[in-house]
């Protein structure tokens, strides 16, 4: 063996040892020095934290009958990053779901920064359409179904509201409360007010997954934090009375009725006609459907009890009267100007609703026959700014604080308001005449009216109207924790209160009273009619507000119908039926 051969094997040996020493040092660094670092990565590789959404609390009436329930639904999601053929997908969705190209475009644009997240494309997909999409799903890898809890309102009542997918702005606001994109939350009505009670708390599961992200069901049972279901909500609503009231109002195109228990402020029934099916909002509502709802002249989306503001007409008269009494500009027995079918104020003739006239009346009789002239005359003795403040203190202007979102306030002008509009030298005289009988610029909602009369029924104590009765289930909180109704004394003396009550009693119970229809056997009924002139149509808005007492006042009812005629002849019979129903079915069964 030559020396050069020895050199060759020597060089090869050197190469070999250097090579392996290099590998060994790398292995040492990788496995020993940085071993725990890579162990962490390996664990992250296969461990996923999966959010388990909670079950939303259901909503029940005062006797545990369900109003809003959870139902299993199938929702369709889209993962923008996995769209293969956009054109084909657009046509496919158009054909099976009626999702237009523009809608898809908008959805994808909203989710442009999150191409690998799922975006809710269509909630509550009907089963037959699910099947058709699932058949073609291998062509559209961007689409995926999820079985989720959906929501169903069992009655179409405005106050229940509905839930919907979280919007961008809501997400920004609520992300800190553990809200996620694609999550549903209350969008309107009680669903919105009591979102945090109903929602519950999401749980988390640690799942072991393989390289394709499939769960292996390994760690599932020992490493998890279960979701906490939302609280069940019990309302003060009585489902039977609610349904009965709905039935009574159904012949009317645009109407509202609200029934309150004056002792608590709890709402027993609440109907705004026309109703609409909120469940439509929990599917994906098509543009066409939406447009139909918006274009409907009867405005079904409007909750008339809460958001409708109307001239109160004669139901406003107790406010005018009580201010007169409290400011000592009249006495209960004082008779004012004689009504001969109207009254001349300045250069204008103001008619009374009864063209035959009422003659001269004292206060309680003026309320009983709803004589306009009495109040025309009274208005000249009242200061407008004081009057506005009075109206406010009696709860006719500010939001009532009811547990519903988006209430509208009422309106009553003051002198500044007129000066701003008509200039300094305006004469307020004529305007005050109109305001005295709840006409002119005065506006209020049926809810405001009902609360005021409930307070009169309740010995002058005004209570915040509310739906919340209690929560059912774990960690149940009482009404005081979740919703604290206020109560305050109306700014009227006992004397004034009893005069008003006498007048309102006469309306129902004496000869010539405008609301005699509303008498109920065995009960003492107080009430006030109203027929408010308005610019919406020829016929007046019909108002009737009343309450019924047995040993104590138990039920206050406001019925309101747009452009339906006289309160006494149209609204009062409906209110009477509600009182009757209550007397017959609910007093024995409280």
């Amino acid at each position, binding site marked *: *063996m030559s020396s*050069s*051969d*020895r*050199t*060759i*094997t020597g*060089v*090869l*040996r050197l*190469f*070999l*040892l250097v*090579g*392996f020493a290099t*590998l*060994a040092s*790398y*292995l*040492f660094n*990788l*496995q*020993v020095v*940085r*071993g*725990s*670092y*890579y*162990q962490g*990565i*390996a*664990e992250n*590789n*296969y461990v996923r934290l999966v959010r388990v959404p909670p079950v939303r609390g259901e909503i029940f009436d005062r006797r545990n009958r369900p109003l809003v329930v959870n139902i299993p639904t199938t929702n369709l999601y889209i993962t923008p990053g996995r769209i293969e053929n956009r054109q084909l997908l657009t046509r496919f969705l158009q054909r099976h779901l009626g999702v237009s190209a523009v809608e898809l475009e908008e959805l994808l644009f909203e989710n442009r920064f999150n191409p690998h997240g799922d975006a809710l494309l269509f909630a509550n997909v009907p089963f037959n359409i699910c099947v058709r999409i699932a058949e073609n799903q291998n062509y559209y890898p961007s689409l995926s179904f999820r079985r989720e809890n959906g929501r169903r309102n069992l009655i179409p009542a405005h106050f229940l509201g509905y839930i919907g997918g979280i919007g961008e702005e809501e997400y920004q606001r609520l992300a800190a409360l553990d809200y996620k994109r694609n999550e549903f939350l209350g969008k309107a009505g009680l669903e919105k007010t009591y979102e945090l009670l109903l929602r519950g708390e999401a749980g988390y599961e640690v799942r*072991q*997954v*393989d*390289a*394709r992200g499939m769960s*292996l069901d*390994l760690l599932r049972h020992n490493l998890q934090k279960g979701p906490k279901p939302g609280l069940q909500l019990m309302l003060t609503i009585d489902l039977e009375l609610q349904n009965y009231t709905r039935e009574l109002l159904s012949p009317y195109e645009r109407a509202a009725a609200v029934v309150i228990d004056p002792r608590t402020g709890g709402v027993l029934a609440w109907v705004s006609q026309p109703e609409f099916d909120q469940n439509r909002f929990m599917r994906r509502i098509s543009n066409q459907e939406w447009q139909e709802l918006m274009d409907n002249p009867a405005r079904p989306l409007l909750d008339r009890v809460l958001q409708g503001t109307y001239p109160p007409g004669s139901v406003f008269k107790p406010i005018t009267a009580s201010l007169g009494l409290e400011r000592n500009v009249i006495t209960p027995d004082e008779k004012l100007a004689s009504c001969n079918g109207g009254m001349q104020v300045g250069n204008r003739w103001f008619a009374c609703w009864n063209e035959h006239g009422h003659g001269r009346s004292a206060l309680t009789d003026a309320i009983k026959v709803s004589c306009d002239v009495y109040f025309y005359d009274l208005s000249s003795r009242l200061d407008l700014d004081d009057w506005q403040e009075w109206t406010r203190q009696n709860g006719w202007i500010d939001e009532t604080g009811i547990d519903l979102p988006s209430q509208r306030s009422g309106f009553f002008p003051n002198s500044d308001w007129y000066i701003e509009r008509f200039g300094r030298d305006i004469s307020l005289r004529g305007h005050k005449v109109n305001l005295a009988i709840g006409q002119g610029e005065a506006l209020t909602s049926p809810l405001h009216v009902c609360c005021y009369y409930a307070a009169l029924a309740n010995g002058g104590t005004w209570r915040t109207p509310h739906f919340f009765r209690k929560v059912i289930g774990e960690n149940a909180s009482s009404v005081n924790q979740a919703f604290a109704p206020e109560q305050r004394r109306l700014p009227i003396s006992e004397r004034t209160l009893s005069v008003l009550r006498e007048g309102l009693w006469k309306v129902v119970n004496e000869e010539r009273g405008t609301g005699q229809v509303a008498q109920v056997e065995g009960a003492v009924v107080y009430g006030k009619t109203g027929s408010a002139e308005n610019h919406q149509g020829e016929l007046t808005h019909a108002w009737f507000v009343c309450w019924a007492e047995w040993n104590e006042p138990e039920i206050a009812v406001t019925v309101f119908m747009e452009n339906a005629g006289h309160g006494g002849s149209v609204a009062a019979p409906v209110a009477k039926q509600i009182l009757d129903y209550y007397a017959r079915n609910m007093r024995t069964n409280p």
Partner: protein
Amino acid sequence: MQTKIDIVLLVLLLMLIVAGVLAIYTASATRIGEDLHVRGQYLRQLIWIALSLAAMVMLVRIPYRILEIFFMPMYVMTLLLLGLVLLFPAIGGAHRWLLLGPLRLQPSELAKLVTVLAAAKLLSKPHLKHGQMLLRAVLVCGLPAILVAIEPDLGTALVFGAVFLAVLLASGFPMLYVFLLVSPLISVLTVLSWPLFVAWMLILVLILYRNKLTVPIISIIGVVNVFVFLVTPVLWRNLKPYQQNRILTFLDPGRDPLGAGYQTLQARIAIGSGGMTGKGFLLGTQKNLEFLPERHTDFIFSVVGEEFGFIGTMLLLTLFVLLLLRILRVIGQLQQRQHRIIATGVFAYLAFQVLVNVSMNLGLMPITGLPLPFISYGGSSLMVNTLGVAMILKVFQEKSFAK
């Protein structure tokens, strides 16, 4: 006939083969919870092991001078097979396998050994001039390298480069010239930094000067190296983006963790997470949950690293080092040039594949698709590697007759 066998070499070979079966068993098993599922690859590998050992016994028993007759015909036949394989449908984008019923044969594996044997035959002729030697070596290694590169299988083609250098060295070609042949490659590697290149050129010139080469030769070599250095960036710019990407991803796997760098990254995570002692036989999470690609073939070293830790990888590497050192020891004892060329050639491709495959698993080299000898799943590879070692046993046995 005296049958003198190098028992140490044989035992090391058998240990590696046993290690390989264990590795393939765990690599083809999926254990999730208490639920163990093993695919049949290790069984097929056991059959191949039986066949390979039988072939080895037969080969050792056939007299060398009879074997020698088949060197060149085998070489020609293998070249034909390498041509034929291009006509078969591609699997995974490469025409690499001959499909014979249930068998999938890889002629490029066979070509490694056969090329070594042909080179031994051609280069051991006495009184060859250096030029003739170089030409023969280039031809005998170049032809299969080109055919394999067409498949395409760049990794295997590179193996022929290693074989080429080894057989040249073993046949007495001066080491200085081998060094000069390799020098442009080193120039390419220095392309990333000017000072490095300057330093390298100084070393090169110094070595040439020390070996008393004439000025013209020194300048020619210098010019070639400078030219290569200057041309490489131009070539780089002419590469297609995906080719550039592949190289860049190799340099930094993290730049595309879900794309080209995925395999490298997952392999590194697997090995690293094995730590000192490993996660235990069958218990590798990267493997069980299929994060690790090509678990039973190219990336089987990562499975070993994950389940047996640093101790396991060091044991395996030590086995390889011992085997290769033993082969070098045998080479040192061989008298005949032809024998030395065979042993050195086999040494070269085994060592090259081990180094490249492990480097690839560690993310030190681009993913080339070279299996880890004796460990990776694959019948052709196991058979050829075993026969390679058998040839060394054979020539070791022969040396007793030489004198």
